[in-house]
């Protein structure tokens, strides 16, 4: 029987981790996501599934613990919020460079610097365009509900192991803190040593076996020609991901003259905004990117051939809008509307922005 609960987004991350057979969580407290580790510590999964939960001395240590665990072929994860995610960038680029699968959750708050503890979407560039040094990409999932906080933990691990690539759930303080009804995932046992051997034994440090050479987890290559070859291998992987893993949702786009593009909590607000627009007789649709990398470029390009304009709604000074513009490539106007610093836009503000910036209503 399905297990329905009323839960906070952050609590659901913890619950979903245990249920999907996660081997280890390593974190450091930061608002607005501390409930993830609090929930795990309260549930004591080490007594039940054997999952390791450890409060690290810093975000830097936590992400390097994830590196260590992922290097052993284990399902490991960390969570944090914006300033903490900045600290983790060193480890994230090493993880990408060593091609390790893992899950990183960012419950975004406003910045720059210590900024605010209120929700924002101002870490889009950091999550989608790299974040740390070197040419690499994370697979980035953007949940818009507590249900998706649950679903994307399992999906995130699946994609991480499918491509041996770090996956980020780019959430925000709204999704992390709000409570909604959620259908919890089926309980899956943790992988056995034999299963890990089968899935990751060819590269993971599970202890040298007599029938194989020893495995090395590293991101170091001193020979430039070999490093370039490796960079090309990464590019090929990212191209495969772009080909196979684009996910998005379209609401009322069939007859739409205008499209709002929004992800995460902004998409929830924008959904109300398109209802208001429809009541006013303006045909507006919503395109909600679910994967931010890979980005739903193709569908936006297609829509650009039949709509009059796009409005990117995001709680940032204008980050994702650049990817909408790249997709639209000048065919029709693309504008941005956003609130900053932890302020959350209202549906009416979104409607007004659409009318003023795109429809040009006098």
């Amino acid at each position, binding site marked *: 029987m399905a297990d329905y609960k009323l839960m906070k987004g952050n609590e659901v991350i913890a619950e979903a981790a245990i249920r999907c057979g996660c081997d280890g969580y390593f974190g450091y407290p930061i608002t607005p996501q501390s409930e993830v580790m609090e929930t795990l510590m309260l549930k004591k999964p080490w007594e039940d599934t054997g999952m390791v939960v450890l409060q690290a001395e810093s975000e830097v240590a936590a992400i390097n613990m994830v590196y*260590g*665990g992922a290097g052993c072929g284990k399902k490991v994860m960390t969570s944090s919020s914006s300033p903490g995610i900045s600290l983790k960038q060193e480890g994230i680029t090493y993880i990408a460079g060593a091609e390790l699968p893992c899950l990183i959750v960012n419950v975004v708050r406003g910045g720059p610097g210590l900024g605010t503890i209120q929700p924002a979407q101002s870490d889009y560039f950091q999550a989608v365009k790299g974040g740390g040094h070197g040419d690499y990409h994370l697979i980035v999932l953007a949940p818009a509900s507590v249900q998706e906080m649950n679903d994307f933990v399992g999906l995130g691990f699946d994609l991480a192991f499918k491509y041996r690539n770090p996956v980020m759930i780019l959430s925000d303080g709204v999704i992390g803190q709000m409570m909604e009804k959620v259908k919890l995932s089926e309980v899956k046992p943790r992988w056995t040593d034999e299963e890990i051997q089968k899935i990751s034994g060819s590269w993971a440090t599970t202890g040298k076996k007599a029938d194989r050479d020893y495995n090395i987890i590293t991101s170091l290559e001193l020979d430039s020609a070999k490093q370039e070859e490796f960079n090309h291998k990464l590019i090929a992987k990212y191209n495969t991901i772009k080909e196979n893993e684009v996910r998005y949702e379209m609401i009322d786009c069939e007859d739409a003259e205008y499209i709002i593009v929004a992800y995460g909590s902004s998409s929830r607000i924008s959904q109300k905004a398109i209802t208001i627009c429809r009541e006013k007789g303006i045909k507006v649709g919503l395109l909600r990117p679910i994967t931010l990398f890979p980005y739903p470029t193709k569908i936006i390009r297609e829509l650009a051939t039949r709509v009059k304009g796009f409005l990117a709604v995001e709680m940032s000074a204008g980050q994702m809008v650049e990817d909408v513009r790249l997709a639209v490539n000048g065919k029709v106007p693309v504008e941005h509307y956003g609130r900053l610093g932890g302020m959350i836009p209202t549906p009416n503000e979104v409607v007004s922005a659409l009318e003023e910036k795109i429809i040009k209503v006098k």
Partner: protein
Amino acid sequence: MDVKDIIKPENLVYKKPSLLTDNVTHYCPGCSHGVVHKLVAEVIEEMEIQEKTIAVSPVGCAVLAYNYISVDWQEAAHGRAPAVASAIARLMPDKYVFTYQGDGDLASIGAAEIIHAANRGEHIVVIFINNGIYGMTGGQMAPTTLEGMETATSPYGRDIALHGHPLKITELIAQLPGTEYVTRQAVHTPGAVRKCKRAILKAFKNVGEKKGTQFVEVVSTCNSGWKLNPVKANEWMVENMFPFYPLGDLKG
């Protein structure tokens, strides 16, 4: 007597440990790393734990340690080896996990990671090579650089007023209740090499018995960084390093 009459199995008194690979070493002639690598390989071989050992290499000269010892390795970010090793040891408690770190890696950029891993009593062995200098990057001042010692970034000698004091991190580590065995060794004489091997063996045995963090410092030479030939470097180490970093067990 022909040489073939001498090279016979019954005359064998010393051999290269089977875990040491045939890769050509990148270490400078006279560097202590080679000897310590050999000791670690011997200990793992003698304990028959090759399949149970996971090693973590640092950033610094020993970044390529994974080229030389035939066990599974992870190469950690600068200073983070104890965090990486903490996770490995917790997720795979049947394994022998060790880090191999230099003084820049462990005592400077990774000071937080080693102190907290040791304070949690993580079941790991830490091999800490202290030569008082950054070797890989070309001989810059380390936290362990002695007062007055000339390096690329303290060309007029380490001035305490300007650069602060040399850090006795091992003394600090020894105070932490999570550590069980903390010792300071060297490999400059055959006797010292034998003692150092006993220390590494003890550390690995202890970690197998889940006795907490095992910490073996090896005061070492850096001929290139110190700009001394191997013999002179050993003499300089005895005269200058040992008075400030005295050899012996600090704990356990």
